[in-house]
C-alpha cells in the first residue's frame, strides 16, 4: 500500500448565503480563489498535478459545465491537468479526497487537488429544476425528504430536547468565536477580495436568544434556524499526494490518510450516516473510538450531531475544536474538504496522533476518513 497524505489545506472565508459578502460572487470564482491560494501556500508545482477533483452538491447553472475543468483553467494550472466534478451532496469534497487516495493507490497519479465549493445563494439547494421521480416518490417519499425533517425525525427518535440542541449550538458558536478571535482560523483562510474572515459566526449567541427562535421545519418539532447549519457560500481545497511525492517536493505533510469509508442509511434519518461510516473506517484502520484524538464531525444539525456522538460514544472534548458548521457555515460541496483538511491541520497544531472527519449526507449516507500523524 502506498502512503497517501494531505499536504495542504486552505479555504475561502465562509459567508452567509443571500446577505453575505459572497452573494454576488460566482462559485467557480470562489473555487478558483481557494485553489490559487492552496497552490501559493504549498508551493506545489502545477505541472505535477494529475487532476483537480471538485466536489459540488448542485452542479448546475454557474456550478455546471464540469466546473472542475474550468477552475483548472481559471486557477492558472497547466492545461495538461484534468478536472472532474463529483457529487455526493454534502460528502462531495470528502469523496474527492477519497477518489484521489484511490487513484494514488492505483498508480493513477501522484498529486491531486481535492476541492469543494457551493454557492447556496446562487444555486438553490434543490437546483433550478427539481424533478423527482414520481414513481419513487410514491413508493418511498423519504427519498426526497427535506433535510430539516430528517433532523426532526432524529430529535424525536433520540428524544433530543430543543434545549439540548440549543446548548450544543451555543458551544459551537463559542468555540468558533474564540478560534476566530484568537486568529486560529486565519491560518486556513484565503482572503477573497477584501473578505478576510468568516461571516456566519454569531459570537453573541445565547441559549435564551435561541429559545426565542421560531421552529423552522415542523410546528410540532424542536429544530430552529439556530440549531441548523446556515445556508452558506464558500470553497475549500486540499492537496492530496503520495508521501513520496510530498517528500520529493519538500511539501509539509499534515497527516496520512489511514482509512476511508462510505455507508448508507435510511433517508429519513440521514443525519445518522456518520455512525456506520465511522465504525467501518475505524475497523479498517484497526482503531477504536478511544484512539481518536481529534474529531471533525460535520454539524449539519445539532440533533444529528448529538445522536452520532451518543451512538458512537465520542468524547465531546475532542470534537470540532474550532467550532462546527452550525457556527462556521456549511457550503454543501465545500464542507468535506474543509473538515478533512481541518482535522489534518489540527493533528499537526495540537500534536496529536489520530483524527476522524465524518459527515452525514442527504438521501441517507455517511462518509468518514481516519487520519494519522506521521
Amino acid at each position: 500500500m502506498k502512503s497517501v497524505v494531505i499536504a495542504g489545506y486552505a479555504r475561502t472565508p465562509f459567508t452567509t448565503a443571500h446577505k453575505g459578502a459572497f452573494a454576488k460572487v460566482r462559485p467557480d470564482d470562489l473555487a478558483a480563489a481557494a485553489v490559487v491560494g492552496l497552490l501559493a501556500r504549498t508551493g506545489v508545482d502545477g505541472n505535477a498535478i494529475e487532476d483537480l477533483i471538485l466536489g459540488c452538491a448542485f452542479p448546475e447553472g454557474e456550478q455546471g459545465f464540469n466546473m472542475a475543468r474550468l477552475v483548472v483553467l481559471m486557477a492558472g494550472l497547466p492545461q495538461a491537468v484534468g478536472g472532474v466534478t463529483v457529487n455526493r451532496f454534502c460528502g462531495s469534497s470528502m469523496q474527492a479526497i477519497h477518489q484521489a487516495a484511490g487513484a494514488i493507490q492505483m498508480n493513477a497519479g501522484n498529486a491531486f487537488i481535492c476541492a469543494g465549493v457551493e454557492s447556496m445563494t446562487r444555486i438553490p439547494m434543490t437546483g433550478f429544476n427539481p424533478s423527482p421521480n414520481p414513481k419513487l416518490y410514491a413508493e418511498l417519499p423519504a427519498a426526497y425528504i427535506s433535510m430539516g425533517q430528517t433532523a426532526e425525525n432524529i430529535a424525536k427518535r433520540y428524544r433530543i430536547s430543543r434545549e439540548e440542541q440549543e446548548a450544543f449550538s451555543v458551544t459551537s458558536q463559542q468555540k468558533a468565536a474564540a478560534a476566530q478571535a484568537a486568529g486560529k482560523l486565519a491560518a486556513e483562510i484565503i482572503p477573497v477580495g477584501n473578505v478576510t474572515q468568516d461571516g456566519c459566526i454569531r459570537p453573541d449567541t445565547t441559549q435564551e436568544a435561541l429559545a426565542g427562535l421560531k421552529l423552522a421545519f415542523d410546528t410540532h418539532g424542536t429544530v430552529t434556524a439556530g440549531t441548523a447549519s446556515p445556508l452558506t457560500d464558500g470553497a475549500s481545497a486540499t492537496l492530496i499526494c503520495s508521501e513520496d511525492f510530498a517528500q520529493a517536493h519538500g511539501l509539509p505533510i499534515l497527516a496520512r490518510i489511514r482509512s476511508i469509508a462510505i455507508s448508507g442509511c435510511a433517508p429519513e434519518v440521514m443525519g445518522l450516516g456518520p455512525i456506520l461510516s465511522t465504525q467501518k473506517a475505524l475497523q479498517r484502520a484497526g482503531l477504536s473510538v478511544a484512539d481518536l484524538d481529534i474529531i471533525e464531525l460535520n454539524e449539519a444539525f445539532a440533533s444529528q450531531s448529538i445522536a452520532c456522538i451518543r451512538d458512537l460514544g465520542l468524547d465531546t472534548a475532542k470534537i470540532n475544536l474550532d467550532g462546527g458548521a452550525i457556527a462556521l457555515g456549511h457550503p454543501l460541496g465545500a464542507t468535506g474538504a474543509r473538515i478533512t483538511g481541518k482535522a489534518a491541520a489540527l493533528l499537526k497544531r495540537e500534536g496529536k496522533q489520530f483524527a476522524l472527519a465524518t459527515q452525514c449526507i442527504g438521501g441517507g449516507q455517511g462518509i468518514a476518513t481516519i487520519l494519522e500523524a506521521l
Partner: protein
Amino acid sequence: MDIHKVAVIGAGVMGAGIAAHIANAGIPVLLLDITTPTLDKLLKADPAPLMHPKNARLITPGNIDDHLAALRDCDWIIEAIVENLAIKQELYRKLATVRRADAVVSSNTSSIPLHELIAGLPDDFAAHCMITHFFNPPRYMRLLEIVSRAQTDQDALAKISYFCDHKLGKGVVTANDTPGFIANRIGIFWIQTAIHEAIALGLTVEEADAVIGKPMGIPKTGVFGLSDLVGIDLMPHLMHSMKHSLPAGDALLEKANIPPVIQTMIDTGYTGRKGKGGFYRLNRDGGEKVKESINLQTGEYSVSQAAKLDSVKASRDGGLQALVSHPDKGGQYAWRVLSQTLRYAAALVPDIADDICAVDTAMKLGYNWRLGPFELIDQLGVAAFAQRLAAEGMEIPPLLEKAREQGFYRHEAGETFYLQPDGTYTPLQRPAGVLLLADLKRHTTPLLENDAASLWDIGDGVACLEFHSKMNSLDPQILELIEESIAFIPNNHQALVIYNEGSNFSAGANLGLLVFAAQLGGWDEVDNIVRAGQRIYQTLKYAPFPVVGAPSGMALGGGCEILLHCDAVQAHAETYIGLIETGVGLIPSWGGCKEMLHRWSSFRKRPGGFLPPVLKCFEIISVATVAKSAQEAKDYLFLRPTDGITMNRDRLLADAKAHALTMVANYQPPEPPVFHLPGATARVAMEMAVNDFVAQGKATPYDAVIANTLAAVLSGGDTDITDTLSETDLLALEHQHFMQIVRNPATLARVSHMLETGKPLRN
C-alpha cells in the same frame, strides 16, 4: 419644460410620503432634513407609500447643511417642514441662494397663507413660489390644492400643475390664498360640527357614523372613525393654526372650541389609532379583540353597538331627502350637520375658490365624499334646502340664492353647466385627455346592455365594455354581453376597451351563484359557467380587433383572468391584480393558469429549464398573490412589461382608448401558444414543497389539497416534457380539476365564509 428632478425638504410623514410618490412617478428625488433621514420607516409604512420597493432607489436622502448645493439640479423644491413661518422663511432665504432661476419652490403648508410665506423675499423667488398642498397619505389621497398669486410665473404654475396631474396622478384644484384653502376649511367645519352636534343631540359615536357614512355618501368611517384615523389631536391643531387668519365672524370660529371629553382624550393619549385608542378602540384585555366605543357624555368605553336608526333605514330607499326629513334623532342630526356644512360651503365661494367645481372636487378627492357640497345641495333640492334654512332663521348665502331656480349644476343637450358666482352658467369642460363614462352616460345610450354590463361608443371607432354588477362581479350576464360585443364590434368599431368607473374593476366571479348552484346540487350549472367563461375569454383573445383592459382598484380572480386575455392592458397605477381563487378553495379556471404559464414560459428574464415557469406560477397562484400596485403587477407578469400605467384615474379611459387605437392598423390576433410541460415530476416537486409548508405550519392540510390540485394543472397533468400541449388541453385540465375541487365541502365552506364575512377561511 419638464420636471426631471425634485427635492423635498422635511422628511416627516408628509415630506417622506411626497418624496415616495414622486419616486413612484419614476422621478429622482432628494429628501433632505436637518439630519440625513433613513428610509426604513418609509419602507415599512402601511399603507405602503411606495408603489414598488425598488422605487426607493430614486430617493436620495441628505441633510440641509451638507447637501444644499445639490438643489441646483432640481426643477422643483417642495418644502414640507414644521408649520412655523419664521423657520420656513429662513429656509427660503437659503433656497434663494442655490435655486436655479427657473426652479419652482412650493410649500406643503396646510395653514400659512402664501402671501405671508413670501413676504420680504426677492421678487423672482416669490414669482416661482407657490403652495402645493398634498393630503395624507400622498400616494393614495388624490387631492392636490395649488395656491398661487397673480404675480406667480404662469409657466412655472402650468409646469407644476401638469406634473402633478399627469405624473403624480393628482386631481389638481386651484385654491385661493385663504385659511385652510378649500378642503380643510370645509372639512374641519364639517368634522367639528358633526362632533358638537352628536354631543348636543346625545347620539352615540356609532349612531353618528351610521348617519354620516353611507347615507351621505361618505366612507363608512363617518366622522368619528375618520378622526381616529387621522389623529384626534389633528383637528384642534389645525384649528389653532387657522384661527388667527380666519376672518372675524367666520362660522368656523364658533366651532373652534374643543369639547371637554375630547380634550381629556387628547391629554391622556387617546389620540386615535396612533395612540391608546380613540372614539373607537380594540380592547384586547380578554385575549380576544373587542371593538369598543367611547361614550361622548361620560368618556367611558363600552362594547360597540350597531346603530339602529329608522332615519338611516329610510335613506336606503328615500335617499338624502328621506334622511334629513326623518323626525328621529338621526334625521335631526343629519340635517343639523348637513345644513350648516353646506351653507358654510355656499358662503365661501368665490372667496376660497373661483368656482363651485373646485370645491366639489376638493371635498370628493380630499375627504372621499361621493358628492361635493354643491352636488349634495342639488340632490336635496336647492329650493327646499334654502326654504328650510330660512324657516329655521338661518341666513341664505347669495350663491345659494342664485341657485334656487336651476340648481348649482344643470344638464342640457349632453352638456353640464355649473353656476358661476355672478349667476351665469358655464359649460363644464374636462381637461384634454380626461374621458369619463359618467359624462358620456348623461347624453348617450349604450350600444348593448343588460343588467350587469353595457357596451358604449367612446368615439373614434372604439367601444367600451362596462361592468356594473354588484362589486362588478362576473356572472353569466356579463359573459353574455362580452360575447354579444365581440359579434357586434366588427360591424362599426375597430377596437374594444374594457373599463368601468366602479371602485374596483372586478372582484371576480360571482361566488353567490356558485354557492346557490352547489346547494341545489346544480353541478351542470357550475360546469356550464366554467365552460362559458373559458370559451368567451378565448373568443375575446382571438377577436379580430384589439382589446385593451383598463382596470383600476381590484381586479381579482375572473377579473384578473379577463385582463390576462386582453391584447394589452392600460392600468391605473392603483390597480390590485391577483388570482385569489385558492383563498376560496378553488383554482383559476377561466384560462388563468394557462395564460400565466404562457407568460412565464415565454418571459426572457426567467431562469432556464422547464420547471422555473411552472414553479413561478405555482408560487404566485397557490398563495393567492395580489399585486399591491400596477408596478408590482409587472413583477408577477399579471401585467406585461409593455402594458401601460396611468397615474391619474381620470385619464385612464382616454389613455386606454389611445392605446387601443395604436393597435388597430394591421391588427392580427395573437398566435396560439403551445406548451411543453414537465408533467408528474413537477407535480411531485410542488407536492413536496407543499408538504414541508404544512409541517412548518405555513399551510393547512386543506391548503395542501388545493395547492396539489393547482400543481396538477400547472404541471400539465399526465404529460411529458417531450409532448406538446395546446391551449385546449390546458383549459380541459383547469376545467377537470376545478369541477373536482368545487365539490369538496371544505371548498364550499371557504366560499360561504367569504360571502358571509368578506374574509378568507383557513380550513
